[in-house]
């Protein structure tokens, strides 16, 4: 299936310069692993960094720096080409790395209505989590204070505006109040990152929120 929803220039550039919170880095790296279009756009931002490195006013290294470097590489074996990781599963390498394996390695917690989630270990400035939404089920209605990225890994979901399949990424800012529903056919698994806690509109989800860190 062709990916239709891509990363924004702002996110790709922030990733290229290294200014994204860890949780967002994970979502960007996972999407780029699945999407040649965004890999190429990311490379074009990296090329700007290359041009800046080339043009920069250099600052001389210490006197013995080159000798030290040559002595150092003497003891350094070069890595060799490796076959690409053949992941039979649904997680691209950067995500599998965080989870410590594929789907079977995820430690889910139920959050009601058949929906499950697993918080991934990242720095605290933003949160990354895996979401498991049974086919046909809605994710609790929510808005959010910051930005929310949702990347589909399996199945598909739709909200009021659009449809998102495997590889598609939804970028929602605080303006968006939406009710994503997993489409019939296959349970939907997503990787999501938020840079501020979600705020749920219903009372019960709001009470449950601190408990589940969503």
């Amino acid at each position: 299936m062709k990916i239709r929803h891509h990363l924004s220039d702002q996110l790709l550039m922030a990733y290229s310069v290294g200014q994204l919170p860890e949780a967002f880095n994970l979502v960007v790296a996972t999407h780029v692993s699945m999407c040649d279009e965004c890999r190429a756009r990311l490379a074009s931002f990296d090329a700007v960094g290359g041009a800046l490195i080339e043009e920069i006013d250099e600052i001389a290294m210490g006197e013995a720096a080159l000798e030290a470097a040559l002595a150092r590489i003497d003891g350094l074996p070069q890595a060799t080409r490796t076959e690409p990781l053949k992941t039979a599963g649904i997680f691209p390498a950067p995500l599998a790395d965080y989870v410590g394996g594929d789907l079977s390695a995820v430690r889910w917690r139920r959050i009601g209505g058949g929906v499950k989630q697993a918080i991934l270990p990242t720095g605290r400035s933003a949160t990354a989590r895996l979401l498991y939404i049974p086919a046909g089920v809605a994710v609790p209605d929510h808005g959010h204070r910051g930005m929310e990225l949702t990347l589909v890994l399996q199945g598909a979901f739709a909200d009021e505006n659009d449809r998102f399949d495997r590889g598609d990424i939804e970028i929602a800012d605080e303006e968006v109040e939406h009710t994503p529903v997993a489409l019939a056919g296959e349970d939907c698994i997503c990787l999501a990152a938020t840079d501020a806690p979600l705020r749920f509109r219903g009372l019960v989800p709001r009470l449950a929120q601190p408990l589940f860190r969503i």
Partner: protein
Amino acid sequence: MAQAEDGTDWAGLMLRVRDCQDRAAFAALFRHFAPRVKAFLMKSGAGAALAEECAQDVMAVLWQKAHLFDPARASVATWVFTIARNKRIDALRKDRRAEPEELDWGPEPEPDQAEVMEAQQETERLGRALAALPEKQRALIERAFFGELSHSEIAAETGLPLGTIKSRIRLALEKLRQQMT
């Protein structure tokens, strides 16, 4: 081989490091890039001693991971930038950074020379485009790349001709994937 305007074939040197563990080629790359990496890290807020140490680390990675350098996809300067940026994140932020899957797909067929030339000349073309930008806009791009802007402050529009780079890399990736299947 693809030569830069000043006559130095950085990609060729890099391939000698990759394919022949050529120490003289490494020394030439070190003389050119290490002082630039040091300057980049100091602009990003590192002190001189830390920047020097990190520049050494960056050049060691360039040696160790030479097999990941693909002259058809990036110039040496671009590749050095990505290593230096990752080092900056390691050293200054202590955050873990997820990287996309490597497209490291086994014995490479000889890369197309025209593509290599194109990729290697990109850095200079971009450099000229940067120089031609209005001062304010260039300063903003520099600040973003030196890590002085937060992600919410980063404006998407660089005003640089990135579309052509994107299309070229996109084609290279398609070819690579075709060879895979």
